[in-house]
């Protein structure tokens, strides 16, 4: 490549970074604006302050935000764990065993993935009220599985297909017991795939809004995105803009940390199934 075209590709890269980070920078900047400063019409705060963060963490809005944060973490982690365990078995079977119905399982996962969430909300709303799951953690964990399971099965079976399973026998030939071969050879090979799948599943559960807003009514189980959505209408304080921005920044921190730590794996996980399927 000539120096000139190199420069252009670098410029392109820089433009991409700006494109991706600009709205994030804006919400961070907005969260540092004091209530009197929110309407200054500028990108940056005139005088940065932590007021909004104290409002949502210790002040007037903390009883709205903190329970929601706890709910979000709990519900998303449990849903991620369940779907990872279930799809671990399923992906193992799909990658390693030969049985009729493999296509059916993958096809079902695909169909569930394209399912419109709102179509499930209506019947669940009524059903959950009848059987007492409305506004509870299990009442969200169960529908979250419809979001996390399909992608977990696809991603994990794509990862498992690439594991050189014959290494297990090789280890056994070398004198390892079945358990040793599994633990020392297969687990280290499979762990990255399982871990990456867990991250992607967590992102998806963390992102949910439709279930959260429809199937909860109090801070017993309302997750953060739903709580944010209700900040606007149902808040006691005057201008919720700064508080929403601060809460938005806080819920963005976990995903940014995960992205920065595991970017290579996440990209592999997102694209593996699509191309090599």
């Amino acid at each position, binding site marked *: 490549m000539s120096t000139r075209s190199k420069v252009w590709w670098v410029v392109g890269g820089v433009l991409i970074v700006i494109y991706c980070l600009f709205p994030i920078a804006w919400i961070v900047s907005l969260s540092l604006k004091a209530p009197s400063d929110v309407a200054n019409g500028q990108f940056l705060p005139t005088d940065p302050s932590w007021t909004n963060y104290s409002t949502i963490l210790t002040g007037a809005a903390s009883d709205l935000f903190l329970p929601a944060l706890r709910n979000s973490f709990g519900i998303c982690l449990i849903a991620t764990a369940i779907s990872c365990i279930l799809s671990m078995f*399923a992906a193992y079977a799909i990658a390693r065993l030969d049985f009729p119905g493999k296509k059916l399982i993958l096809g079902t996962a695909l169909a569930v993935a394209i399912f419109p969430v709102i179509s499930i909300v209506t019947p669940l709303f009524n059903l959950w009220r009848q059987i007492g799951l409305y506004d509870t953690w299990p009442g969200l964990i169960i529908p979250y599985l419809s979001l996390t399971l399909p992608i977990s099965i696809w991603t994990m079976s794509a990862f498992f297909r690439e594991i050189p399973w014959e290494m297990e026998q090789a280890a056994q030939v070398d004198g390892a017991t079945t358990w040793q071969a599994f633990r020392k050879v297969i687990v280290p090979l499979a762990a990255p795939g399982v871990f990456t799948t867990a991250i992607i599943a967590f992102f998806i559960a963390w992102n949910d809004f439709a279930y959260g807003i429809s199937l909860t009514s109090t801070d017993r189980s309302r997750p953060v995105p739903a709580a944010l959505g209700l900040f606007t209408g149902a808040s006691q304080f005057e201008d919720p803009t700064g508080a929403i921005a601060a809460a*938005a920044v806080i819920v963005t921190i976990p995903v940014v940390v995960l992205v920065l730590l595991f*970017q290579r794996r996440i990209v592999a996980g997102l694209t593996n199934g699509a191309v090599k399927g």
Partner: protein
Amino acid sequence: MSQTTLPPVEKTQPVSSPGGAISDRSRAERKLGWLLAGPAFVVMLLVTAYPILQAVYYSLFSYRLTDPENRSFNGLANYWVVLTDPLWWQSVFITLLITVITVAVELVLGFALALVMVKALRNIRPVVRAAILIPYAVITVVSAFAWQFAFNITTGFVNSWFAWLPGVESTTDWFGGTGTSLFVICLAEIWKTTPFISLLLLAGLAQVPEVLQEAAKVDGATRWQRLWKVTIPNMKAAIMVALLFRTLDAFRVFDSIYIMTAGANGTESVSFLAYRQTIARVEIGLGSAVSVLLFLAVVLIAFLFIKGFKVDLAQARGER
């Protein structure tokens, strides 16, 4: 020790039963396969197939949650009410408009991003890759708020930054009309989901054989010709998969609309209409009918893609 002496060859090779006879071994393997994959399969069916069947059932009743006594069977009347209501067709039109605009822009923009990522020098590639994952991973609600606040007449900076553009003034109310509201909604959706498309396209780009590029270069093809005649035809599968998933995803647009306009000024999407009927108006019967119609629309789109464009589902995957 006895369990370590299993003949390893038989275990790794999938048993293809010769001549239709099913051996014990393959029967055992089938059993184990379903035993392992069964729970996930059953859970998937329970959380989707069951509710949608329930929705079909509810949709045949006149049923309002605040008035359960008067629940009565009325056949397809709910569907008739929905399909003859201009509100439904308005929301279908808005949803299709958002879908077509965002998917078209995302495809072009995502392709450009993928090309830059391929060419980006090795030392800046991790930075670009991390940056591109951020919009994908950020909560849709957060992205919707960021864009809404940016364009908002009191909290935003867009009006003062772009005051030099004709039509933009400090008093421009972006959320005051249908067109401008939709513009901001589409911007937010495009920002959030282009990275996902670009990653899929990047994976597709990596599959274009380098020899073909070289051969075309030697034959004197211009950069533009190589793009259209070599690169794009060779990554058709990746493009189609990306298109299919983004189209279905865009068609379900809900979060951004809820946050930005709450359906005001005729920006209601089909998903939002279903939500409003069920949760806000507790019209379970009508809401279920809208939900079932939304489901059928998604199935129809998927069917058209798979039959019309021959998307190979074996290469596709689930993604939301």
